[in-house]
C-alpha cells in the first residue's frame, strides 16, 4: 500500500513539478525582459546625488521543492555530486525575489537599485527529520533611487 502511495505521489510530483518549473522559468524570462531597463547594482552607492531620493525596497518568496525532486535528490545524496534539481529551485527563488523587488521599485518610479543584498534561509519543519520539506526563503533587498523630479510629481 505504501509503495502505491509513494508511486502516485512521485508521479504527481513529477508531472506538476516539471509543469510548474517550466511555467515559472518562462514567466521569469518574460518579466526579466520587461524590467531590463531598471539596473540593479551590488556595489555601495558612492556618488553624491543631490537630486535623488533613496528608499528601501525588498522582495521575497518562499519556494518549495516537489516530491519527485526530493526523492531523486535523496538518492543522489548518497553518491554526492551536483544537485541540479535544487540548483534550479534556488535559482527560481532568487530570480523571483529580485523581480519582486524590481517591481516594487518600478511602482515608486525608481531609476536604479543599489546595494543589492540577497539572503537565503530554510523555513518549515526543519527539526522534523521525517517530514522535512525542503523549502527555501529568498529575500532580496536594496536601495531604490528615485529622481527627485519624478518624486515630487507624484
Amino acid at each position, binding site marked *: 500500500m505504501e509503495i502505491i502511495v509513494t508511486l502516485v505521489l512521485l508521479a504527481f510530483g513529477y508531472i*506538476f*513539478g516539471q509543469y510548474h518549473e517550466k511555467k515559472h522559468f518562462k514567466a521569469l524570462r518574460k518579466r526579466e525582459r520587461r524590467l531590463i531597463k531598471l539596473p540593479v547594482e551590488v556595489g555601495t552607492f558612492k556618488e553624491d546625488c543631490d537630486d535623488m531620493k*533613496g528608499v528601501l525596497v525588498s522582495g521575497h518568496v518562499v519556494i518549495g*521543492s516537489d*516530491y519527485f525532486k526530493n526523492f531523486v535528490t535523496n538518492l543522489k545524496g548518497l553518491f554526492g555530486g551536483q544537485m541540479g534539481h535544487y540548483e534550479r529551485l534556488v535559482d527560481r527563488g532568487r530570480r523571483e525575489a529580485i523581480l519582486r523587488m524590481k517591481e516594487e521599485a518600478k511602482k515608486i518610479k525608481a531609476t536604479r537599485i543599489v546595494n543589492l*543584498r540577497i*539572503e537565503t534561509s530554510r523555513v518549515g519543519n*526543519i527539526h522534523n527529520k521525517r517530514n522535512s*520539506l525542503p*523549502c527555501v526563503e529568498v529575500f532580496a533587498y536594496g536601495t531604490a533611487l528615485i529622481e527627485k523630479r519624478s518624486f515630487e510629481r507624484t
Partner: protein
Amino acid sequence: MEITNIENIPGKTIVEHFGVVLGSSVRAKHAGRDLMAGLKNIVGGELAGYTELLRESRKEAQTRMIAQAKSVGANAIVNVRFSTSSITAGAAEILCYGTAVKVK
C-alpha cells in the same frame, strides 16, 4: 522616516549618529497553513502561506526598528540589514537592524 541600506541618505547629510537600532519578530502560522504547505510541497512551487507569513513578520520587525529609532530622536535609518533564523519547526525569527541617524 527614511530608510536605506546604503551608508547615507542620498541628497542629505548625516548630522548625528544614534547607534544601532533593531527590531525582531518571531511568528508561526497556524497548523492549517503548515498542512497546506505540506501538501503544496508534493507538487512544488511557491508556498504562498509562508511567503505571507514572512512578509508580515518582516514588516513587524521593521516597524519595531522604526519605533526604536523614533524614540531616540532619529529621522532616518541607514545601513539596514535583515537576517532570518529558524527557531523551531514552523516559526521563524526575523531580525532587522540598522544605524539610526539624524539627517538634514
